[in-house]
């Protein structure tokens, strides 16, 4: 075995700093071997160690009476009552997807699914949040096509319904797209599995795909540095997904976890075998002894360095009860998967790895895993913040043709129908989809692990307004948490907990650190106020190309529960001649709005206020209205303001247009297209009851019009007609938003 000698230069090439290398020498009391250097470099990479963010992440609220598992495990878990738990997490796969969109996105889905079933939960639903540059750019049409086909390829094949998400476009993502994948699973509360290598002498078992040379340094080098023109050279660090093997792994693992054979389990994701074994030993306070000669491999001549750092997908590391190894391996074999005993749990807190008779790694577990570096990087308010936030509306040309503006907004790919995207996803498998993609939140029935149905359903939403976050990261993050909760509450479900994916630029720049810190603060404040703790998440930094960062994008995934799905409420107007009630207060806020960006090319101002006390009352009101079955529909007012929300509500059923009168105390554009938060449009047959419940809930509510007809008509109080348009025509513009850009020949 011929391995390079390790010195400082080689350490720097591995992305370690001089101080970190000095610390390694101190921990070991000697020069590390090549394999050991590889281990330190991945475990201490930004991606695996969260070194820039963990100091700040500690401030997030993570506790609550229903929280079963907070951050730190493969995924978070909350109690749903009746012995059932929801297990969920969101994770980024941004850099791989930019380099190779189909496989990058596919393996993103595969990775998040493994995080869920590793906990003993059957994944029941996937969502995603994807962001691209403009579709006018051929590269981004290619990227959208690739990412969507990758998400579909993987998700469809493993049999997990993709039920929702968001697809956004903005130039700030032109050099660095975002692909955040979220998955939700159901487990028995008493059978949640953790990643702990417990029980000295217990066998350590490797299961799943064979180990190849793919993805080495995917996490440490690809995900932990910025892009430049050489991005394509990093293509070999992107892994290739095999959803069929993943499907078999899901079934084999869930079958095994329903027995008493498994002690701990961890998937091999970023940094592969290294990360999974170190984390399992660290979590349990034990050590592991491992023989690399036994690892199933794709190439006969792989070195220990490659075996330890490979990020080949669809692999699991398990600790089984001593004596059950044959049984465990036999279950994997029945599913056509490799499974071998590769080592055992020890009690000395060290990781000892042998290869062809010699020891290649012998290092203490804790300094590598639990005690990895933690930085408090300097942060500084961006110099252009004042410019970002300044907006003189008196200099902005007012809207003279609101109907044309509405059509223009609906035809924007950000607001237009995303059916081009989600028609490529299996939304129905497992038979639980009550509300699929396109609603405020997805709604998915909960079945017990034995397959029997319950009356419970989970409402799931993924949200972030990146423009708000750029203008004011703290307020933008608050708005994202509030909106995600509101979307969940709009279905009648009670928002319970959050998973977040923090996508930011290079943390070595103080301005980026400032954005990250502010966003985390905003999430903390909002999550505390709304009683929805953060139970899992992921941080993705270095999202920039040639020094240009993305807009700060803290994506919020919210999960809520409805006890009886028969109480659920949809977003579309359901019947003609029902009263439309506007819940909430219009503060006539135009800063950061879609109208300003699209119609005036202005992306500045202060984002709308977020009144969290009110927001909590509003969400409670929505849940109560659902329980009392007062509402026929409810739809959150967000991007594009009330005009867009009204149009969207009309797009469900024919004959369910609307005629609405707005109290236009302000300018036309503020009134129609302002994006004040905390507003919801509901329809009902019993307006008196809704208004009275709103009064009792201390939530402003006013009847603004009626459903019915084939047109959307919006008037002002003095009877001047602002918009009077055919719903069918608006709908056709909205439906064409993405297809007309993707398939212009049709």
């Amino acid at each position, binding site marked *: 075995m011929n391995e390079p000698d390790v010195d400082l230069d080689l350490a720097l090439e591995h992305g370690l700093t001089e101080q970190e290398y000095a610390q390694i020498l101190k921990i070991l009391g000697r020069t590390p071997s090549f394999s050991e250097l590889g281990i330190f470099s991945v475990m201490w990479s930004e991606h695996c160690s969260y070194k820039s963010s963990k100091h700040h992440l500690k401030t997030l609220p993570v506790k609550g009476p229903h929280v079963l598992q907070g951050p730190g495990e493969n995924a978070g878990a909350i109690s749903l009552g009746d012995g059932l738990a929801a297990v969920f997490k969101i994770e980024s796969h941004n850099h791989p997807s930019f380099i190779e969109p189909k496989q990058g996105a596919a393996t993103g889905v595969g990775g998040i699914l493994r995080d869920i079933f590793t906990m003993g939960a059957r994944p029941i639903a996937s969502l995603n949040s994807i962001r691209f540059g403009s579709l006018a750019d051929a590269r981004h049409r290619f990227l959208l096509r690739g990412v969507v*086909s990758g998400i579909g390829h993987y998700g469809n094949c493993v049999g997990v319904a993709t039920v929702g998400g968001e697809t956004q476009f903005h130039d700030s993502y032109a050099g660095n797209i975002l692909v955040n994948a979220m998955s939700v699973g159901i487990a028995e509360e008493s059978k949640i599995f953790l990643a702990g290598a417990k029980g000295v002498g217990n066998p350590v078992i490797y299961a799943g795909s064979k180990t190849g040379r793919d993805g080495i340094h995917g996490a440490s080098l690809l995900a932990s540095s910025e892009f430049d023109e050489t991005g394509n050279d990093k293509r070999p660090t992107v892994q290739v997904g*095999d959803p*069929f093997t993943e*499907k078999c792994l899901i079934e084999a693992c869930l079958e095994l976890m329903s027995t008493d054979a498994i002690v701990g389990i961890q998937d091999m994701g970023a940094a592969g075998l290294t990360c999974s074994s170190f984390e399992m030993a660290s979590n349990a306070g034990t050590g592991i002894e491992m023989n690399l000669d036994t690892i199933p491999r794709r190439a006969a001549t792989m070195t220990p360095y490659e075996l330890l750092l490979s990020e080949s997908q669809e692999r699991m590391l398990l600790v089984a009860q001593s004596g059950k190894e044959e049984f465990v391996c036999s279950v994997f074999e029945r599913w056509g998967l490799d499974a071998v005993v590769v080592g055992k749990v020890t009690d000395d807190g060290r990781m000892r790895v042998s290869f062809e008779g010699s020891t290649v790694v012998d290092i203490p577990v804790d300094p590598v895993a639990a005690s990895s570096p933690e930085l408090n990087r300097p942060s500084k308010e961006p110099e252009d913040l004042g410019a970002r936030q300044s907006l003189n509306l008196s200099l902005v040309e007012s809207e003279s043709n609101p109907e044309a503006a509405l059509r223009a907004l609906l035809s924007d790919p950000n607001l237009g129908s995303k059916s081009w995207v989600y*028609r490529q996803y299996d*939304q129905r*498998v497992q038979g639980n989809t009550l509300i699929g993609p396109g609603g405020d939140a997805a709604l998915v029935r909960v079945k017990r692990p034995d397959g029997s149905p319950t009356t419970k359903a989970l409402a799931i939403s993924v949200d972030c307004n990146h423009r708000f976050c750029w203008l004011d990261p703290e307020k933008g993050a608050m708005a994202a948490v509030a909106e995600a909760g509101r979307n969940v509450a709009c279905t009648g479900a009670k928002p319970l907990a959050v998973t977040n994916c923090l996508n930011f630029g290079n943390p070595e720049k103080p301005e980026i650190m400032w954005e990250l810190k502010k966003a985390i603060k905003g999430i903390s404040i909002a999550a505390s106020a709304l009683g929805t703790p953060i139970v899992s998440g992921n941080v993705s930094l270095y999202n920039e190309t040639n020094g240009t960062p993305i807009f700060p994008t803290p994506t919020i995934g919210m999960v809520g529960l409805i006890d009886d799905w028969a109480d659920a409420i949809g977003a579309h107007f359901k019947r003609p001649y029902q009263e439309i009630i506007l819940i909430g207060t219009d503060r006539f806020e135009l800063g950061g709005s879609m109208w300003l960006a699209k119609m005036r090319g202005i992306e500045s101002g202060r984002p709308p206020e977020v009144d969290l006390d009110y927001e909590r009352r509003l969400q409670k009101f929505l849940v109560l209205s659902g329980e009392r079955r007062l509402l026929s529909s409810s739809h959150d007012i967000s991007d594009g303001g009330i005009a867009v929300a009204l149009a969207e509500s009309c797009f469900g059923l024919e004959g369910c247009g609307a005629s609405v009168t707005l109290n236009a105390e302000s300018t036309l554009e503020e009134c129609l297209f302002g994006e004040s938060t905390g507003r919801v449009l509901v329809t009902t047959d019993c307006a008196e009851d809704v208004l009275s419940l709103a009064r009792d809930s201390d939530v402003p509510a006013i009847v603004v019009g009626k459903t019915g007809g084939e047109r959307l008509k919006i008037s002002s109080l003095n009877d001047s007609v602002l918009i009077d348009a055919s719903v069918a025509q608006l709908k056709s513009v909205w439906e064409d938003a993405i297809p007309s850009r993707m398939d212009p020949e049709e």
Partner: protein
Amino acid sequence: MFAVIQFPGSCDDRDMWFAMSSVLAGKCSMVWHQESELPAGTKGVLLPGGFSYGDYLRCGAMAQLSPIMGAVKRFAKRGGPVLGTCNGFQILCEAGLLPGALRRNSQLVFVCDDVHLRVEKRAEPFSSRTEKGAILTLPIKHGEGCFYASEMELGLLEQNGQVLLRYCELDGTISKASNPNGSLGSIAGVLNKEGNVLGLMPHPEHAVEAAFGGTDGIAILGSLLDMARSA
């Protein structure tokens, strides 16, 4: 009793079992593809949707070689009802139990949507609960559902009345716009000559509960259950 065959990579197996047993109160059990015989008392065989063996080769090409397929073929030859949905349809074509083949969708991407389907005939054991000309709404979700057969085969299919379902508009009109994958003759469901083997691209098992995609799938699955109960 109905047997749902479980291949590695089957995805809709549990949904088929759920629809037949939990929702429609029939007797149903899962049969692993490595078995060489169907359970005693099997009244019907259901080949579920999904991606057997990942469908990395031609869809269904690997699954049709599974040990259980010998038993399924014998069962079909004796006149036992066999329903294959989506991947199950692809497997039946590969196994030679149904004519034709399923090619990549004409638009080259996976499509998941509700489609309207015109029932072309009422016959046991698959459509006794509905009638000729009825319109069903069922979900499809596939990347390779474009039905293809040679001109001669297609002629024979029509002549023998082997087409059970066609993609159509809500009013029953057959059109290019309502054909989601480019299938020849807008064919969505095909019977063998004897009428006891059916392949469907749409998923009746995903349309058995009103709140979860409607109940039109019962027209097909309920017919099978009626047959089993009366037999």
